[in-house]
């Protein structure tokens, strides 16, 4: 088997975005009939690798060899013609078209005219792959996230697939769906095709894959067979150092510490129901949850981005009216408020085309006024202090945020959140797509802020992170806070168990 000609090979592929080297000379070989796993931290360049394989991104350098023939792939269309079929991490179905139409559109050849034949066809295709109860005449944007993901996988399967690339296919799936996907992958390789699975769930890697590639910082650092797979070792390779040293010590909560934030039975129109908890001064409170369990609503409601339907929030004993982020940041009466570091750094966190200065000073412009409008000197001083605090070169103050690396962009977002000197800092997945060095700096920042007597609420997709930097972790499941772990109970296993809804 190992002697077979690789169906897809990459040799020395490089890709640079601005100053970020996303791929630093990647070489991999995918052979027919096997399932490959690609693991790596967020921001290791996995998605760029996938995109350069399927034509969404054009590599700067390097060779792509499909079935022994060097090719250049300029468009997703071309990749498809070569038999590379991809399920993207960001869903790529057309929201305004029905599922049946999407199945059609994604198909390589042939076009079925008429609605009814199309529906019949799509239903049949779905049934072949074991999906039933599908209303294929529904528009994609009327489907749930899980159904959209299943639809996406279905569309990829319905194309000719010499290589099936699955980029984080299970993020919105239920456990039963993962079983289904396992069966699907087995069937695909049994038919002689190759599967490349990108995921951060090591359990899935262990279950699905024959060979595993480990990617770190834009380079492939290891390639192991399933038989030699060792979780601890792979994790170390992924993050480039051992787990213990990756986190700074957590500052203790002073015993006489007062309650800073008091949330009682907070509910939203979306998912969140009846959330109640408190944060003390100096406390780092974590939230663990699988995707889409209501944690977004919780953070949005607390930051004023989303109106709550019920419940109350008190900050230092005084009630907060959270009707807009402005009110969360500036509760009035000169009090400090609640600041948010949002999940989407590039679209929600920073304004990429504005200089760092204008980004960081945006929430505190009120304080920088003088007789003739904004005072440049005051602003430079305030922004420089903040940049120093987050360790970004203060000489870059007038550079656009876009010109910074991902990690530094995130630090600017932090500086912006810190600017208002908020009592409570909400951090939604603050280390996503950030390199290891910066991650450590961010942890130190968080610890430092807590040491200064502020409260922190942090959500992270990476459970080890929560275990290692939080005093206490709440678990959110189906819109409710179902568990709380602290002290000895606070470990990866117990959090994961609670997060998937299995509570002792």
């Amino acid at each position: 088997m190992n002697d077979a000609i690789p169906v897809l090979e990459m040799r020395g592929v490089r890709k640079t975005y601005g100053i970020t080297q996303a791929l630093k000379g990647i070489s991999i070989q995918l052979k027919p009939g096997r399932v490959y796993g690609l693991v790596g931290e967020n921001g290791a360049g996995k998605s760029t690798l996938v995109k350069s394989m399927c034509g969404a991104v054009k590599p700067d350098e390097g060779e792509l060899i499909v079935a022994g023939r060097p090719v250049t792939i300029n468009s997703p269309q071309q990749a498809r013609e070569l038999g590379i079929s991809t399920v993207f991490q960001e869903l790529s179905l057309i929201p305004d078209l029905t599922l049946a139409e999407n199945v059609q559109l994604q198909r390589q050849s042939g076009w079925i005219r008429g609605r009814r034949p199309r529906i019949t066809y799509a239903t049949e295709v779905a049934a072949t792959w074991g999906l039933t109860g599908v209303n294929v005449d529904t528009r994609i944007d009327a489907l749930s996230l899980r159904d959209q993901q299943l639809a996406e996988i279905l569309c990829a399967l319905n194309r000719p697939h010499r290589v099936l690339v699955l980029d984080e296919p299970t993020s919105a799936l239920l456990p039963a769906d993962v079983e289904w996907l396992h069966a699907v992958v087995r069937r695909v390789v049994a038919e002689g095709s190759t599967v490349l699975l990108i995921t951060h769930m090591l359990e899935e890697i262990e279950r699905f894959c024959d060979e595993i590639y480990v990617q770190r910082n834009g380079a492939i650092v290891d390639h192991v067979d399933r038989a030699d797979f060792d979780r601890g070792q792979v994790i170390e390779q992924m993050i480039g150092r051992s787990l213990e040293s990756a986190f700074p010590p957590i500052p203790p909560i002073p015993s006489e510490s007062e309650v800073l934030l008091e949330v009682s039975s907070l509910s939203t129109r979306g998912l969140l129901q009846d959330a109640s908890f408190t944060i003390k001064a100096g406390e780092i409170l974590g939230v663990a949850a699988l995707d889409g369990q209501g944690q977004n609503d919780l953070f949005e409601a607390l930051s004023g981005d989303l109106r709550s339907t019920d419940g109350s929030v008190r900050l230092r004993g005084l009630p907060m009216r959270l009707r807009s982020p402005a009110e969360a940041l500036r509760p009035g009466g000169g009090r400090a408020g609640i600041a948010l570091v949002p999940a989407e750094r590039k679209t929600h966190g920073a304004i990429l085309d504005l200089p760092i200065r204008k980004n960081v000073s945006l929430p505190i412009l009120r304080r920088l006024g003088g007789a003739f409008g904004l005072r440049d000197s005051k602003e430079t001083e305030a922004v420089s202090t903040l940049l120093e605090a987050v360790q970004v070169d203060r000489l870059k103050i007038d550079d656009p945020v876009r010109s910074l690396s991902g990690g530094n962009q995130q630090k600017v977002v932090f500086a912006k959140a810190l600017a208002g000197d908020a009592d409570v800092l909400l951090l939604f997945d603050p280390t996503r797509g950030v390199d290891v060095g910066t991650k450590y700096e961010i942890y130190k920042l968080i610890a430092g802020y807590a040491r200064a007597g502020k409260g922190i609420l942090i959500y992270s997709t990476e459970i080890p992170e929560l275990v290692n930097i939080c005093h206490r972790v709440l678990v959110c499941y189906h819109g409710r806070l179902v568990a709380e772990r602290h002290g000895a109970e606070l470990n990866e296993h117990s959090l994961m168990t609670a997060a998937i809804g299995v509570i002792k």
Partner: protein
Amino acid sequence: MRALYRPGLRLLESGLAVPLLFVLVLMTIYVSASPNALDPSQLKYTVINASLTLALAAAGLAIVVLIGGLDLSSAGVIAVTNALLTVNYGGSVANQFLWIGIAILVGILSGLFNGLIVHVFQLEPVVVTLGTSFILGGFALLILPKPAGLTPVEGFSPIAFMTSDIAGVPIGLLVLLTITAGWLLMRRSRFGSQLMAVGSDKEAASNSGVRVGLVSIGGFGVAGGLYGLAGIAITSQTSGGDPNLGSSYLLGAFAAVVVGGLKLGGGRGSIIGAILGAVAVTIVINVLFVLGFASFWSTIARGVLLLLALGVQSAITVLLLRRRRGQSITVGGLS
């Protein structure tokens, strides 16, 4: 039950319900106030022919709107084709058809030009079409410096035919039906789905293997062709040319498209909606006329109609279509 429910829901989803409702309500008022409005020749003149040019222009604009753009060049294309036809039309039937073909071709070419510039330089369609609308307007004036009539044609004239009728059936209606049929065919074709995909989400479309550039250039081309047809329609309607006539269709077409339930920004709606919207915008003037309103009310009514259409449309979206996103798909073993 389900069988009945689905088509209704689909109608609501497609955005056609609003223009259909408006046309029906307005027609009812119109007919009840002026009973002879249903007379075939009345219908032909005051409804079909009156809205023909606007409907064609709106249909063209609708395509650009569907792919997520805004097009200001409709007036320019109409003016140029109208001018071209006025100057050159006549002679043998073959020659007449030749110039009709040329008119449509000019429309398609200017559409392709717009699309090409928009795509190659990644510019906003509004600015590009603003520029081309000036240029086209200038060309119209260059070709036809003053209004003129068509050279009278002996015997059969395809241009005059467009606003006449066969056995009481207005040709304009047939033209609109043909466009509708063409749209339905196109909508069911790969190109049609790709067109909607581009308007719905360019990136997803590209990831789905749609050649976004080609499709949007093609869309602009089709739109241009429809503007060209609108130019022919106005030439037929007025049996002449006037370099300044096109301008009144610019804002009218936008109104028709919005009343027609299309979503500005792309991906939702249909040409049928735009055509119905154009009819609604036209009949509202007739209705005000027969009800004895002063003329200035017709402009005001157009504005109110716009807002009303949008209100009803979003009421439908929110009150009827916002269903809980259920987890409907069941996974099973592989066969």
